[in-house]
């Protein structure tokens, strides 16, 4: 058994959250620059210029990139030979989240679903974190983190299409979701697509797809060709940066697949705004 200290987990999560709040990761910054170079619309180019400048200011002044600093979402791979000492792993992630958001002057955005009252005093500052655990072989702990904003989450959708609809059915559904979203989710977007599994498995896969490095190539050749086709199709929608019209609507499309039930073909589309704040912590 390899022991990992509770406080070490808290500290690395706190620090990663604070850093992510004010520093756009390299992959997202590269995509933003690429979109600026490629964009044909002067209005959208001006938007992208502001976003690049914003990234500079956020980093140099240590000010959040966006006021929506998200709900904290984690995908955690726990090695079976890892033992957390001094507390539970879940508590460490939540404590790190609360400290990171509070110490980083990030926004407490969790509220009661009905009264809409902010829950920072009742449950904790921006708590609870959204955590997806997976048990794996080995003695390592890998924690993927992303700050997920509300605007892009609001336009995300899932469905179950008839199996006969197949590949084209998936492509049509993704196009429909992005087209209907228009300017609302703060394009240029990263589009996470989850295919197969059960209904909730597709949704979780579409979320996890957003954590993949922007600009990386899908290891599966069928999915790679679907991603390429979708990037082209989605850019043809003409939505552009902040929806004001343009040629650069998406940074990329990331697809994850799962085997599914013989009767079903679940499809989920999780949309990510241009401020793709994500990182990986390895302990």
């Amino acid at each position, binding site marked *: 058994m390899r022991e990992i200290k509770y406080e070490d987990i808290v500290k690395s999560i706190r620090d990663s959250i604070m850093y992510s709040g004010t520093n756009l990761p390299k992959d997202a910054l590269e995509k933003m620059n690429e979109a600026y170079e490629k964009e044909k619309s002067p209005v959208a180019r001006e938007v992208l210029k502001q*976003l690049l400048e*914003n990234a500079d200011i956020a980093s140099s002044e240590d*000010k959040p*990139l966006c*006021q929506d600093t998200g709900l904290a979402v984690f995908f955690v791979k726990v090695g079976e030979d890892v033992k957390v000492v001094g507390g539970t792993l879940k508590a460490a992630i939540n404590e790190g989240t609360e400290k990171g958001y509070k110490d980083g*002057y990030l926004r407490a955005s969790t509220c009661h679903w009905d009264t809409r009252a*902010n829950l920072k005093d009742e449950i904790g500052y921006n708590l609870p974190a959204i955590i997806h655990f997976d048990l794996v072989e080995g003695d390592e702990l890998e924690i993927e983190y992303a700050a997920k904003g509300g605007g892009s989450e609001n336009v995300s959708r899932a469905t179950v299409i008839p199996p006969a609809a197949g590949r084209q059915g998936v492509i049509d559904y993704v196009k429909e979701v992005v087209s209907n979203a228009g300017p609302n989710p703060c394009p240029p977007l990263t589009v996470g697509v989850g295919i197969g599994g059960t209904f909730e498995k597709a949704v979780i896969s579409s979320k996890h797809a957003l954590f993949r490095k922007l600009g990386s190539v899908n290891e599966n050749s069928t999915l790679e060709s679907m991603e390429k086709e979708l990037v082209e199709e989605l850019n043809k929608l003409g939505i552009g940066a902040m929806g004001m*019209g343009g040629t650069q609507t998406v940074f990329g499309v990331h697809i994850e697949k799962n085997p599914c039930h013989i009767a079903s073909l679940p499809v989920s589309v999780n949309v990510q*705004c241009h401020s793709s704040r994500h990182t990986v912590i390895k302990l």
Partner: protein
Amino acid sequence: MSKTYNLTTPLSEADVIQLKAGDIVYLSGIIYTARDAAHKKLIDLMDAKEELPFDVKGSVIYFVGPTPPKPGDPIGSAGPTTSYRMDSYSPRLINEKGLRGMIGKGKRNKEVTDACSKSKAIYFGATGGAGALLARQIKSAEVIAYPELGPEAIRKLEVVDFPLTVINDTYDQDLYKIGRAQYEIK
């Protein structure tokens, strides 16, 4: 062709009827922040025929819930939130109270754009996700109502050259539709 204007609040009818979808406006003066929770409270006050916490006539409301300010800063990061959540409240503020401008991002419904045409108001877009850049143009911030709403409290902001784009003008024109049609390949 899009034009560029420098305007100062409060805005008059003459200020806003010259604007067309796609124009750039650098706005200075006092503006007020409110998101859905604060809007609901304003409408409740109107229903009860009570006075609102600020003079809405000629004013501009910014849909924003900023991050907490660091010591010494007037405000934290402060970019626009998605505006459709205010769609059920905005028409009454425009038609009955003379609201002249709204700042947000994303589509508005027909009731809002109809109110903009009828009572002469503008829906401006600010760049979503540019909260650090936009905060630089905010010189002071003061909570004037509903502090219990935290980031959603109503704040009085003093802004200088706040960069905006006209999305919906007083002639029922919509930049999201015009801009997209120009670049959509069918």
